[in-house]
């Protein structure tokens, strides 16, 4: 186990280096200029723009810039944002709580819907309930979040005037009122993300349970005279959920990565909106940091998923 872990971690290092090199090169080669806004402004002399480029090291060769970035990163210096001239790590840390709250809650919501619905539908395949659940799941993951988001805004914000559609990270209230306001502004984005995710989870849970439900040991359990409830929860679900757990673990990086489209629609100050703003402003240090953190999380959670798999299913060994 320990040697397996060590081996995986050692493999992770070159792959992360490779990822960072590719990311950096692609970003450096991509068109665009962080100072493009100055180009159309006659008040800024071209020399200033050139001086800024030079002081930010943009005129050096790509490899020199990459090595400089890498050595700084190794020392814990993430660089600073061209757009706001503050350190990238501060910028990212400011966004993490909101992202965790909104995307995390929506994942929990998705699981709360998908597990019972998926299991119940699988135990009664092709029943009316299963048909309805299936149809809704298809509708759910066919509708993109930008569409459902706008739909909810039109309905609940503009027509009914129930919820605000601009998410604010500083609510000027305390105590219960704060929770209430937080709930009001978060409910629409959480619903949009949660339902979308729930739709695909439901399909997954249903098919996983269907696979298990036909196995002989389930029949044995039933033959032993165990109650249907006990068979479903203890014998079927537990085994069926092994692949689902891996799926959820692999979904975790996305929780940190935020949801670009939904965050943009509801103006949620999460990592996703930070990334898209940085891309639009050609703010390379921020894009680099966010994508690299994302890459690290993917590698890390892949490892965790593999370990979890082995722990849940003793037949898998790490030899």
């Amino acid at each position: 186990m320990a040697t397996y872990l060590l081996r995986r971690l050692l493999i992770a290092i070159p792959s992360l280096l490779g990822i960072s090199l590719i990311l950096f090169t692609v970003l450096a080669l991509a068109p665009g200029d962080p100072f493009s806004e100055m180009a159309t402004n006659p008040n800024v002399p071209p020399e200033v723009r050139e001086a800024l480029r030079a002081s930010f090291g943009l005129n050096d060769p790509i490899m020199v810039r990459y090595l400089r970035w890498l050595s700084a990163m190794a020392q814990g210096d993430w660089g600073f944002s061209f757009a706001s001239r503050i350190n990238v790590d501060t910028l990212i840390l400011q966004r993490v709580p909101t992202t965790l709250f909104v995307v995390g809650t929506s994942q929990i919501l998705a699981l709360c819907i998908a597990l019972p619905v998926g299991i119940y539908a699988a135990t009664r395949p092709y029943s009316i309930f299963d048909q309805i659940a299936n149809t809704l799941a298809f509708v759910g993951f066919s509708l993109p979040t930008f569409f459902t988001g706008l739909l909810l805004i039109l309905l609940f914000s503009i027509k009914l005037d129930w919820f605000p559609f601009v998410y604010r990270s500083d609510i000027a209230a305390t105590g219960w009122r704060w929770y209430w306001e937080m709930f009001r502004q978060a409910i629409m984005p959480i619903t949009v993300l949660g339902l979308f995710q729930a739709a695909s989870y439901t399909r997954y849970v249903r098919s996983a349970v269907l696979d298990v439900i036909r196995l002989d040991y389930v029949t044995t359990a039933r033959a032993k005279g165990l109650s249907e409830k006990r068979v479903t929860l203890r014998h079927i679900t537990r085994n069926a959920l092994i692949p689902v757990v891996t799926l959820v673990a692999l979904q975790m990086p996305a929780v940190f990565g935020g949801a670009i489209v939904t965050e943009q629609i509801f103006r949620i100050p999460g990592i996703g909106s930070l990334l898209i703003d940085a891309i639009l402003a050609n703010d390379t240090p921020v894009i680099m940091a966010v994508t690299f953190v994302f890459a690290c999380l993917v590698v890390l959670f892949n490892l965790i998923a593999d370990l979890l798999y082995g722990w849940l299913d003793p037949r898998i060994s790490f030899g």
Partner: protein
Amino acid sequence: MDERTLSSLIENVKDGAISRRSFIRRLAAVGITAPIASQILAWNDVAMAQASLQYKPTKAGGGGPLKILLWQAPTLLNPHFASGTKDQIAGRIFFEPLAGWDKEGNLTPQLAAEVPTRANGGLSEDGKVVTWKLKQGVKWHDGKPFTADDVVFTWEYAADPATAAYTTGSYTNIKVEKVDDHTVKVIFKEATPFWADPFVGVVGQILPKHHFGEYKGAKSREAPANLKPVGTGPYKFAEFKPGDILTGTRNEDYHVKNQPHFDTIEVKGGGDAVSAARAVLQTGEFDYAWNLQVEDEVLKKMETGGRGKVSAVPSGDIEFIILNTTDPWTEVDGERSSVKTKHPTLSDPKVRQAFNLLIDRDSIQKFIYGRGGRATASFVNEPKQFRSQKLKYEFNIDKANKILDEAGWKRGSDGIREKDGKKLKYVYQTSINAPRQKTQAIIKQACQKAGIDLELKSVTASVFFSSDVANPDTYTKLYVDIEMYTTTQPQPDPERFLNQFTSWEIANKENKWLGRNVSRYSDPEADKAYKAAQKELDPAKRAALLIKVDEIFCEANVILPILSRTRVAASATNLMHDHSGWDVDTWNVAAWYRS
């Protein structure tokens, strides 16, 4: 109204017998527009208006929160690093310049006691020295007094190239001296008719020496005050999350009596223009949203709810077309569109004249831009005294056909005109932006009827407006026959704006295409008039010279102006605000109130 009544009226304003406002109103009654009227007053040494929004509240505070929504979020608060309007708007809440520009282009004192004029001794005879008297009793948010030292320091700070301030262009060629604690002298190297640039408007925010003193030059990025501003403005800093939200509380010691009206201010960023308009006009979640580049139809529909209103103010932004007179398809010395080449067909003035007749400006305004722009034939439109009265536009396909027939451009078998084997086929480029693509389509249709074939090309804005030397699709490269975009006139004086019509600013390989003259066209007469205008102190003569520069380019049909853009904002119905096309939207945020 004859000259004598006019001059007696001016005397009355000087004595204070009649107010400035009623003077302007009387002149308006006989058909003289407000900017001209206020220009008449300025030339006669009557100080400019005090405020363009009448402030009614009788005490400061008590207005509750003011919520502003910017669909591009502010990312930094030091106004000298502000790269875009979003940052300038945010910085202006805490910092103030000596004077700002109102929507009519009048200079309005903010940290200055008065606007310098000849009469009050603020402007020297030779046009080289400007003496600013500072307002007394102004305090920084931390209680320290605001003095001339801060003004002098701001100059040192911005002028230092190592600071890398975006405003540096306004401060490099001047000297600033402290006369006493509340007087500073700005000394220009040469006679400068447009002196209201350093310490004024967008570039003019005064920084506190006691917070930024140690962070001049290369250490500028490390100043804690970059993110926790201490200024003199109407609101004190509370919290800032770059790219998300900015909050402030009322400055109880603000230097204008009874201002500001609101207790707190909040600037939220992010999202897109349409939903920003919706949050103000339809749901009322926010009080004010800025820069609504949204089709007018959409805004009108949202306004019907009655929760908010849309306001548009004139600005110097102009949407225009360049006809390339150099050859974009032949490479000479490593660059295309070199001034050494001539365009095979567009160098014919008749072709350019015909093309200008094929732009249906009225329809473009009516169906695409609405309140967002006004059709025009002049490159400079605001302030009104700089607009050419001579330039007129026309949409006339028959006339265009006739001109081309007469010039010998005959239709070929495919319906496209040609002469000596050269066809009137062009590539017409602009940035990706829905209204621009619609404009392209309208012009293409008209051109088809005149036997000109246009190939439409649109480039992502981030590439089009970049200064990437390696990319052939940037707007300054002009590697196409026809190009369209909007350019911004930052001050209510077109001198610096018109440098894009001078020969020494032509963009080329040598200056890495950073030159401001993108059209590559030049005319010695225009150069001469421009140079003369830079030294001319008489505003009327100067305006005439600058108008001449404008007319030379527009009459040559190299520059085809389409629309003079306006700045469109949405506000809650009961919010009294004051935004200006010559300064940032929050330039006078202290005087905003809820009725």
